[in-house]
Each structure stands twice: as C-alpha cells, then as structure tokens.
C-alpha cells in the first residue's frame, strides 16, 4: 500500500470511527435511560444481566461449534455462562463497564440492527446470521467493531476452555495432582 492510500484510508477510518463512537455512546445512554439495560444481575448470576443473555445464548453455540465433544449444547452454554459470569465479576470496574456497553449495543434494537445485521430478536437468530455478524465485525474497517469481535471471542473461548467439560475436545488431561 502506498503512503498516500494508507493516509486516505486511515483518515476515512478515523472519521468513521468517530461517528461510530458517538453512535455507540448515544446507544449506551439510551439504553440506560430507557431502562432497557438493567444493572441488576439476572437470577443465578452475579454480574450477567437478563438483557445480556439472549445475545450470549445465540452466540455461544456458534462460537463453540465443533468444540463441545461429549457435552450437550444446553450444558455447554450454561457452563460457559457460569465461567463468563465468574470472570466478569472479577474484572476491574472500568473493563466491566466497557464489556457491558458492548452487550448493550448488541442487545438494543436501535443499535443491533444496523451494526450486526440481526434485525429481529437474538432468540430467533439463525446460526448463519450470527456467523455473518461475527464475520462482519471481524473484517470491519472500524477498530471499535474489530475490538468488539476480539473481546467477544476472548470472553467466550476463555470461559469455555477454563472448564473441565472442554478438555476432552482439546486433549488436555487437566492439571497434575499435587
């Protein structure tokens, strides 16, 4: 890439980036004001909110597709949510806040549709649409969405592979007994 093209595309990205940031900030604010995102945890969780769950329940099976050897899908999803909740409960308040803003953007119709291409509820999203959304964020020209993609993958994969339920699939015999 020549210096000129790099300069142009960088400027374009910065411009789009600023717009998207403002959009996301507005969405976060709207979520707070409309009461769409409650700050209280859902039943059975210490941090995850009821509004976070439909997205996660739709995304986790797609992210773990092929890795759930010997574990039923509902169990794998539940386990992952429990590990995720445990990890989120120990994040610094600032990092938790950013994560919850990401979940808000994914949960609210006003941002979900335009940013993910999922126009209906997460409960009704087909696996293919979820994959399409993940690919879209992965290859987005917006750093913000690429960051979101990267965070979602890290959160979910770390949660799943922390648990012994996942170890048969990856040939990990587990830690030695001391």
């Amino acid at each position, binding site marked *: 890439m020549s210096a000129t093209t790099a300069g142009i595309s960088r400027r374009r990205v910065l411009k789009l980036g600023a717009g998207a940031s403002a959009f996301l900030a507005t969405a976060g604010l709207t979520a707070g004001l409309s009461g769409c995102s409650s700050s209280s945890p859902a039943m059975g969780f210490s941090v995850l909110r009821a509004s976070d769950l439909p997205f996660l329940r739709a995304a986790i099976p*797609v*992210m*773990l*597709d*092929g*890795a759930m050897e010997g574990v039923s899908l509902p169990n794998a999803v539940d386990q992952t949510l429990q*590990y995720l909740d*445990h*990890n989120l*409960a*120990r*994040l*610094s*308040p*600032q*990092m*938790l806040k950013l994560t919850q803003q990401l979940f808000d953007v994914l949960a609210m119709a006003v941002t979900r549709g335009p940013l993910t291409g999922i126009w209906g509820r997460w409960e009704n999203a087909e696996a293919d649409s979820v*994959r399409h959304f*993940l690919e879209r964020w*992965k290859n987005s020209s917006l*750093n913000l969405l*690429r*960051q979101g*993609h*990267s*965070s979602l*993958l*890290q959160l*979910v*994969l*770390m*949660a*799943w*592979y*922390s*648990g012994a339920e*996942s*170890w048969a*699939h*990856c*040939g*990990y015999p587990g*830690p*030695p007994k*001391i």
Partner: protein
Amino acid sequence: MPVPDTFREGLARGWKTYDGSRLEHDLTLEADVAIIGSGAGGGTTAEILSAAGLKVLIIEEGPLKTSSDFDLLEDHAYSTLYQEGIGRMSKDGAITILQGRAVGGTTLINWTSSFRTPDQTLDHWAHEHNVKGHSPSDMAPWFDKMEQRLGVSPWIMPPNANNDVIRQGCEKLGYSWHVIPRNVRGCWNLGYCGMGCPTNAKQSMLVTTIPATLEKGGELLYLTRAERLIIDHGKVQGVECLAMDERCVAPTGRKMTVKARHTVLAGGGINSPALLMRSSAPDPHETLGKRTFLHLVAFSAGLFDKVINPFYGAPQSIYSDYFQWRDGVTGPMAYKLEVPPLQPALASTLLGDYGQKSAERMAQLPHTHMMLALLRDGFHPESVGGRVELRGDNTPVLDYQVSPYAWEGVRRALHSMAEIQFAGGAKAVMPLHQDAGYVNTASEARALIDSLSLEIFRTRLGSAHVMGGCAMGEDSSSAVVDSLGRHHQLENLSVHDGSLFPTSIGANPQLSVYGLTAQLSTALVEQLKG
C-alpha cells in the same frame, strides 16, 4: 507427601499482616519505610531494609494467596492473580497486558526466566539516558547476589518438547540458542508457573524476601490500594490507602493511612506512574508515565506429528538471541525468541477464530508448538513506547501505539519463527494473524507472511513485560528519578521497580529488577541510617 505451605506456617507463628477486605475501622500505621507493591522491586527492597533494622510496611493491592490456594485452574488464577482480573489491555484494546496483582506481584505468576540485564542495554542507558553507576561491572555483584538469593541457575532438566523446538530448529539453521536460567529450588517441572507455584519451588517474593521481612517484624497490608501520596513541602507525608473487597474489585469504604520517614514506590510499570499522577506529584518536564515499554509480542504456532503437550513442563527453558543484537543496539526492531506455556484457555485466545476453525485448532493442542518473539522496544527514535493516563475513576490505562517501525519488526519476527519451526520439524506453521491459517511449507509461510496486512486486532499481539514510565537518569528534564531511584523533586520518595528502566530490557526483566533494586536499597540504607 503434601507440600508445606510455608507462608501460612509463618502466619500461624505470628507474622503481622492486615487483610484490607476484613478491616472494620479506618487505620493509621507508622513505619520507617512504606513500600508500595510487593513484587520483585518491593520484595527485594523490603528484605534489605528490614535486615538493616528499619521498620518496614509493605502495601499490596492484590490478595494474599499461598501455595495451598494454587489449584492450577486457569480461570481461578487469571481472575485473582492478575491486574484488573486479567482485563488489563492497552487503551485501544489491541494489546493484552499481563501483570501480577497479589502478594508477590508478578513474581508470583511469571515463568521464572531470569536474565541479567544485557550489557548492551546498560551501556545504552549510560550513553543515551544519562544513567550513572549501573554499568555492567557495577551491576555484576548485585546480579550475583540476587541469583544466589533466589536460586537462579540454568535449567538442568531436559527442556519440554515445546521449548526443544527452538533448540532443534536453531541447531539445524546454525542459529545460537541457550538454556534459560530459572529462579527455582526443587522444581517439579509441572508447567504451571503462570498460575502460582503449588510446590513453593519458584523463588518468588512470596516465599523469599517477604517472609524474611515479616520474620524481622515487618508488616504487610494486602487488599489495600495505595490511592494517593500526601505531598506537602516537597515531601511525602503519608500514603492514603483504600481497603479493597475480597475480589479486589471495589473499595470497601475503609481507609488506611501509612506514615513513614521514607516511601518506596514499587507498584511496577503503569501503576507506579499512575499513583504519582493521582497524587499530583511534581512533573515539571512532563516525563511521568511516558516511555512505557511492553516487549510487544508476536506469535507463531507450529503443528507436529509428535506429541508436544505444550501445557506441561517448565514453561521457558530455551531461548535464542540470534536476532537480538546483530543489527546493533539501535537498529531495526530486534527480538528474543522464547515459547509460552499453552494451557487451553490461553491457547484458545491465541489460536484465534471461533466455531469449526477454532475447534479444529484446539483439537490439535497436544501436537501444537507455540513460539513467541519479544520485541525490544525503546532503543530506536521511532520506538517511543506508550503513555500512562488516568481514566475517569482515576485508575490507569496505557495508550500504546504500534509504530510502523515495530510492525516491520513483527513481520521479520514472524518470518524467523516460521523458519525455525519448520527446521525444528513442524509439518505446518501458522503466524498468529486473523487472515492466516496453517501452511505446510517454508516457502508458503514466507509468501503468506509477506502478504499479511499487519494492523491491530488482525495481528494477535501480546505484551510480555511493562517497563518504564518513571525513568531514571541524572537529567531531571528527561528522567523522573535519579540513578539511585530518588525522585528528582520529592526528597523522601524513591522508585524501586521496572518503571525505572529508560528502555525495555531486551530480556525477561525480573532479574534486572532484583539486581537494580538490591543495589538501590543498599544505598538507601546508607542514606537512612547515615
């Protein structure tokens, strides 16, 4: 035979500690010296000062976890023993920053590699950063002392298969490689150094200098965040601390105030400059928090027919410095080659992707080798490092931009690693980049790496060590503290940790911190007792 938990035995014998999360009333404590941070710098300083008869009080933000707590489970270790519950990353989210946060600091969770500061680095500091008294010959006795104290010696057992790939590949290519010195005594060769050593073999501060300090009547506050230095008339009058809840997430509302003749800041890179910022410490030349370095890390995965089991065995035992100094100290970005341990949760985030692709890669984990290149930042004018900032809640974040100079180094490092992996017997290699998969030949790898668009998020970047931000040097216009770690503007404040380094080290830095802070602490004893 169960492993004795020597720290808990000490507590039972009456060591004096305070658990911030259980504090019921505000507290004021006095000591000769307050030491903020209990990692390599704080621990070393505490032992030397208390051995000289000074009353020492150590303040640690993280929890106290000891050998019997270390259950070798990734989620438990990462969420309790790492900064921000392992959520720490660069401001733009592109680089994960792994730092310890528990009694023992990063020494509790590092991979035990113990290198002396390279001569080239020490000479560079003297010539370019006006650092005095830390030449290779000045430092040699201090490294020697700390190597003996912490049992540092080259690893005597055979390397695990993950490390052995570096040896085999470099042998075949005629590249130099060496055995890594480790700070262990009676190591079981388990491979879980990053989750807290369950056998107390690792000579972290938890089992060495901190027990020695407590034996001498020193005191330890944990789950206690040093929030602000009380500064008046050019002196630190006290340290205001917040008691933290048992998860180390939120302050409980209780406060501690520590008053001492002298205060030593040893919170490590990012945290030490941040505390000075929160305290509005004088910073007339705006050097504070600048030039913070990370040893940016690029990774390359290799698939082998044989079993590697990269999750077992001493995590780091072989390295290559073949690419480290050959283009000069200030030439193109240079790097040290090592391997990381690969337990499943960490492996899944490194290997990347999701769904079938991720599942296929993870299914091959026992046959997977991982190499890393630790990039030596801070030596070239175009490598300026990052800048520490305070967020809205006064906690720190590092703004670190990856320069074109660094990206060029990343690309060369990916080439070097793929070459060594194939020479070492890999049947396929994958540079860790979103647009790359495994390729089967060295020439395919070369073409692939040349074609990759290197940018944040697409390239899976890590960081190995946080260094700088409170740089030492004789010139107060470019350094925060002098060559003895004494603050240029505040007379009873010293900095004793990795934030002192004017550049990155070019090697895993724990022994650099031990040697330097042992030297500085011995000088501080003279000053305080003189």
